[in-house]
């Protein structure tokens, strides 16, 4: 399964949506994923890809990990997988 597909499935599970309803341009707020859901998603991403995500819940926007849209999260995860494998 592609990284994009896996990340979308993780976010969809938190949003209680079907993966087909989670598009690359959607923001987490639009999908109804709150701060706890975001932290859970990051945990699930770390578990799924065995990577460490640089994310601090105190200042999510200031993190190196870009969470502005689903697409940016997918890109960031792809980059991390490349760096950490």
């Amino acid at each position, binding site marked *: 399964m592609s990284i994009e597909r896996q990340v979308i499935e993780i976010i969809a599970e938190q949003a209680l949506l079907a993966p087909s309803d989670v598009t690359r341009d959607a923001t987490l707020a639009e999908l109804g994923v709150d701060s706890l859901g975001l932290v*859970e998603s990051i*945990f699930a991403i770390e578990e799924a890809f065995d990577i460490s995500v640089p994310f601090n819940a105190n200042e999510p926007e200031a993190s190196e990990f870009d969470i502005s849209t689903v697409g940016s999260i997918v890109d960031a995860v792809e980059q991390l997988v490349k760096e950490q494998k």
Partner: protein
Amino acid sequence: MKRVVITGAGTINALGHNVPTTLQAMQDGVCGIGPLDIRDVDRLSVKIGGQVTGYDEAAHFNRQQISLYDRFTQFTLLAAKQAIDAAGLSFSGDLADRSGVVLGTSGGGLNTQDENYRAVYEEGKNRVHPFIVPKLMNNAAASHVSMQYNLRGPTFTVATACASSNHAMGQAFALIRSGMADVMVTGGSESMLCFGGVKAWEGLRVMSKDACRPFSATRNGMVQGEGAGVFVFEERDHALKRGAEILAEVAGFAMSSDASDIVMPSKQGAARAIAGALKDARLAPSDVGYINAHGTGTAANDKTECAAVADVFGAHADRLMMSSTKSMHGHLIGGTGAVELLACIMALRDGIVAPTIGYEEPDPECALDVVPNTAREATVTATLSNAFAFGGLNAVIALTAA
């Protein structure tokens, strides 16, 4: 001072998943203690407990709730729902601000701690789920009850080992009596039946490997249980005005500290709490028909407790009944007083006194009427429920008939 009554009750424990099945089991002298079904039980020397069986968390909670609710919180929420539904209350506006939650627990989210220590130490994982802290904290159960029912007044958790839920209910009683709150959801919960929880208790060498037989000369220690008991305490006029069904009146409460030893109980400390509860409830010793004993089944507790009761009640000690329902549901540690209060309510309301089961042989040092093995019918108008904790902390509640 305001008067305080009980208008709702709920429970889940080894004897049943609600109040009617639990009371029926107590009446029938059912033993809820059996083989433990937990991971690595073969590495334990104590392999029995009063476990909640036939329980599937997924039948009650969704995946997201389960990621936040330790087993002790799940038990609390199930018991709280029963109690609040029975009371027929909903909380909004001023009532919400004047209602709160005080719950007892000793281990809090011990299963969560055990599972995650296992993950990082035994399995060498370097990452744990993000909600471990809000799941394991001792006040998680009280906070979730508050959130679920919009209880916005005084809310906190009390931890005094085996007396936790009696201390919690004593605080709830005091808050209403003094006028600081109108309704309090109170009681306690415990879920320590995991490998680490039982292993720690094994270390003390006070656990029985076969059964809990309080006051019997053949007793050989305590048996752990798990579960929750939750009640709705309500200011009496508030309850009367809305025509609520009153289960019993909380007539008095007292607490004391032995100030002597971290594990060995003291007769004087226990006696001061018992006498204090009578005085606070303005009861004469002869008014009390039934005492739900702390009755752990250890040599130290049972002798000390009987001696303390004999000291406080004098000649009446031979006429009252005192049983330990731990023989049936095990010792729920921080939740035990709450489940045991149900036996007091049954004595007052239904005129049925729960037995001490597993009783085989009299012990001259426990020469009271411990209602051996079979429940008894009796008219009881006042009861006490004893709890004496490690650390020498004692809490005794007096209930009277509604």
